């Protein structure tokens, strides 16, 4: 099959060489129509989706942002006719862009989008789709130029393989009245564990997993606040126990120590089954690979939530909140994203090995 395709390609190029006059006489692309709609990414992020229908594929360049016109996105279509497109089109979705101006000058057609947010990497997307039925808005044209405009830089949620249809319990450590450990500049463990857990949840859900969290905001899990640590920790275990067919329980924490020198990433487990250590090691490897902090390894410990969860469980320690450098890192959005991705990749590896 591959050989056949190769032969066809060679034949095609040979014909092109024989018929240069035909190639030069290709029709000038002409704009045939315009449609727009506010749409959503799979993670829920909204954007304005614009489609410009063309009779043929144009050459084009995109210029955006800069000091003079930070909110202008210019698409320069070479050798393209404006057709009967309106010179000014008002745009839907007040968050994204206000209007599209179109001008034909020389052999070029210039499309200028006036955006609401400054144009920068990730705040827009320009693509060309050729062929039948490529339009998402039922625009009839053989070629569609698609322009997507976001209300700021859009970072798609990371995804991992191998967690589809897995049932995962996430436990952001501490919360509510229990701040967890506090860093030298006042950073609270409960806030970091929640931020990383929410990012981790988004990755897992985007990857097809089913995720249940013991808490999704700043609160005690035991209703009204527990009288004892045991009640609070048991409430977290109970969340996992109530989910049928739950595969794993992962508790997210920041480590702390009396000396500010202690640093690095570690994972604790209780050896109920052989799978507990395997899960801990996979999560640990994922965090170290993405976070880049010192590898403190995995440790067996009689930690309440991993001991009493009726499924493979691990308690991850992202880094030390009592260490000056790591406290700053734990507060950083990018570091939090990396750790969340590392944990998700660890889960992926764990499930792959268990299959």
């Amino acid at each position, binding site marked *: 099959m591959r050989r056949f395709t190769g032969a066809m390609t060679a034949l095609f190029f040979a014909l092109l060489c024989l018929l240069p006059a035909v190639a030069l006489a290709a029709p000038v692309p002409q704009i045939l129509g315009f449609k727009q709609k506010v749409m959503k990414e799979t993670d829920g992020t909204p954007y304005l989706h614009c489609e410009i229908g063309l009779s043929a594929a144009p050459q084009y360049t995109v210029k955006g942002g800069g000091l003079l016109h930070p909110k202008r996105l210019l698409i320069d279509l070479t050798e393209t006719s404006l057709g009967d497109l309106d010179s000014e089109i008002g745009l839907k979705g007040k968050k994204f862009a206000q209007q599209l101006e179109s001008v034909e000058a020389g052999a070029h057609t210039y499309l200028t989008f006036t955006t609401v947010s400054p144009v920068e990497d990730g705040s827009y997307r320009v693509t060309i789709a050729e062929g039948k039925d490529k339009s998402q808005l039922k625009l009839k044209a053989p070629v569609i130029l698609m322009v997507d405009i976001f209300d700021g830089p859009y970072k798609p949620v990371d995804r991992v393989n191998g967690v589809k249809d897995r049932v995962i319990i996430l436990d952001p450590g501490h919360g509510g009245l229990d701040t967890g450990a506090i860093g030298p500049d006042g950073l609270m463990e409960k806030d970091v564990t929640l931020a990383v857990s929410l990012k981790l949840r988004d990755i897992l859900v985007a990857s097809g997993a089913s995720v249940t969290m013991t808490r999704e905001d700043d609160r005690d899990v035991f209703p009204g606040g527990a009288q004892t640590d045991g009640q609070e920790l048991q409430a977290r275990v109970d969340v996992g126990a109530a989910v049928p067919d739950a595969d794993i329980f992962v508790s997210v924490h920041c480590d702390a120590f009396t000396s500010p020198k202690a640093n690095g990433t570690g994972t604790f487990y209780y050896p109920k089954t052989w799978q507990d250590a395997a899960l801990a090691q996979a999560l640990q490897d994922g965090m170290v690979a993405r976070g880049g902090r010192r590898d403190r390894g995995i440790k067996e410990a009689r930690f309440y939530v991993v001991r009493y969860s009726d499924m493979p469980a691990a308690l991850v*320690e992202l880094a030390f909140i009592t260490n000056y450098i790591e406290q700053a890192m734990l507060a950083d959005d990018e570091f939090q994203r990396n750790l969340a991705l590392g944990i998700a990749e660890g889960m992926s590896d764990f499930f792959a090995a268990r299959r």
Partner: protein
Amino acid sequence: MMGLLMLAAGCEGTLTPPAPKSSGGSGQPPTVVQPGEKPGTKPETPKPAEKVTIKLYYPDEEGEWLVGVPATFAAEGRYQAAVEALTAGTEEKGLIGIFPPGVKVRSVTVKDGVATVDFSRELIDKFVGGSTGEEMLVFSLANTLTEFPEIKKVRITVEGNRPDTIAGHLDSSAPFGRQEKLIKKK
């Protein structure tokens, strides 16, 4: 539930009259040596006037290992003295005291191989916490007290009550045994 726990703690701890051979730190002789008994046949019950040397286990600054530092105590009141030395911290280079400032050792009682150490509330209220912090605190105590051959396990109480955890991670409902894995090998 809490009442039950307190009751249970009381039964094993302060309410039980200390058995002569296992009391420590309360001013009473820790053991009764029968006249004529040969010294050395029961090394776990030294005479009141004797001295015992054990290792106090302090964590290193990285929170990775416990390191033993030899210390000698009078046999009489040796349990309390050892725990008080541990909570006072250390001047040894590279090691730290893990117990929070201001914590007091209210009592140490030993029964059936289990030492029950009762601390003041600063143990929990003033502790920096952390999984590593909690683990190092618990096993610096457990490894130190199990240096005494007659002690196999260590239970922590706070002002007479059994805490579920010291810092929110480690299940403290049952006594802790010695953790050789945490001790730094030379």
